[in-house]
């Protein structure tokens, strides 16, 4: 049997991760299990010499992994989920980098991720004004265009 100190260390390692995950506000690793449903929408714009261009997320499709497609592409319209929003939020700088590579003439790329908790009431009303009062995160990346 290992030493008592090691066993207690292992016990903490077995018990703490879901609570640490929750304390960090992270969906992944927290085992919150369907306790919060969010709706999300992503807009991507690239600043080009002739003006800005809105990027369709479907243009990214061949450059994404199968699992990234499952989370990113629904954001063209409205995706739903709990962990998905946090995964997407954390991936915004990576997506910005990818768009810079795909659009070499772009000087900057900006992404806006809208997300809000879903309730039966706002789900019914969503067809009228989907983005109304939805909080959002903005990420802008310089592309080092020549």
């Amino acid at each position, binding site marked *: *049997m290992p030493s008592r100190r090691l*066993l207690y260390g292992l016990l903490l390692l077995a018990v703490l991760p*879901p609570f640490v995950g929750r304390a960090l506000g992270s969906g*992944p690793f927290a085992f*919150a299990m369907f306790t919060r449903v969010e709706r999300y929408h992503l807009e991507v714009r690239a600043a080009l010499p002739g003006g800005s261009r809105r990027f369709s997320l479907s243009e990214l499709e061949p*450059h994404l*992994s199968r*699992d990234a497609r499952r989370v990113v592409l629904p954001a063209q319209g409205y995706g739903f989920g709990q962990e998905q929003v946090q995964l997407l939020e954390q991936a915004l700088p*990576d997506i910005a980098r990818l768009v810079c590579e795909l659009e070499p003439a772009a000087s900057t790329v900006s992404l806006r991720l809208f997300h809000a908790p879903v309730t039966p009431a706002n789900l019914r009303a969503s067809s009228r004004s989907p983005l109304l009062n939805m909080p959002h995160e903005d990420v802008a990346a310089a592309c080092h265009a020549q």
Partner: protein
Amino acid sequence: MRNSQRELFSGSVRPWVYPCLRIGFALVFLIRETSVLSPFVPLEHHRWVHGLDFSWSITRQPHLVSPMVMGLALGAGLCNALGYLRIGLAVALLLGVRSRASAALLALVSYWLMLSDRFQYLHHLHLLFLSIAWLSLGPLDARFSVERWLRGGPTTDRAPAWPLVLLQAMVISIYLASGLAKLNHAWLSGETLQTLEMLGVLRGRAWLFARNSLGYAPVACAVALTELLLPILLARRVTRRLGVFCGWALHLGVSLSMNVSTFGVEMALLLVAFLAIRAPDTVLARTIDHPPLSLL
């Protein structure tokens, strides 16, 4: 205090529990991480897993590089090679060949693949890999092992309990974390369940029966209460079996009402760890000094 500390990890269990969990998790792994059953049984993951899970699926360069942990991103060749390695390790685990090393490596490689692309994270996969990682500490080849069968050697009647205690602690913490996360107005009022139903996530006869019999809020409260009670039931020796049956009922109900992939099966398997009866260390010593008739 010192006695209770000693009691927490000491003692022994019948060895069947470790190989039972080993075979169960190896089978779940092979079923979930491949599409091997797709010609026979349609499972949820067959919609997106064709061949091996996590195999390279990007069709054009440049590609999105977004690892969950910096430095873990993979290229196509290594990603596919690790995918095949995992299947070899899972088969070795199933057969009981170098079980502990196979389990540890399988968990390590699986986490590397999952974390190499943050979008590959799913709760049930995390639980699967985590369970295999903790299992690697136990004597997994005590029974039903090809390697032991080929090599021969003595079989023991008891196995150490401490690896099982760690696995049990993990299960209890998952129930507690999940139950605590549900202590909010949106869940307890039944609003979250109603939303999940409107989105088509909750469906099926079991769900309709529960909803029509009790209503949204009582079902939500019952689920939260069960998840919070389970750690107490499972931690106490006298209520442990009741806890196991409550847990199985909970996962059966959830699995019948929504797509949770292999999560319910994994939790149901982990509950088996609570069925092993722990005996004090003296039993092990007594067994060696005075072997029971069945061993003679």
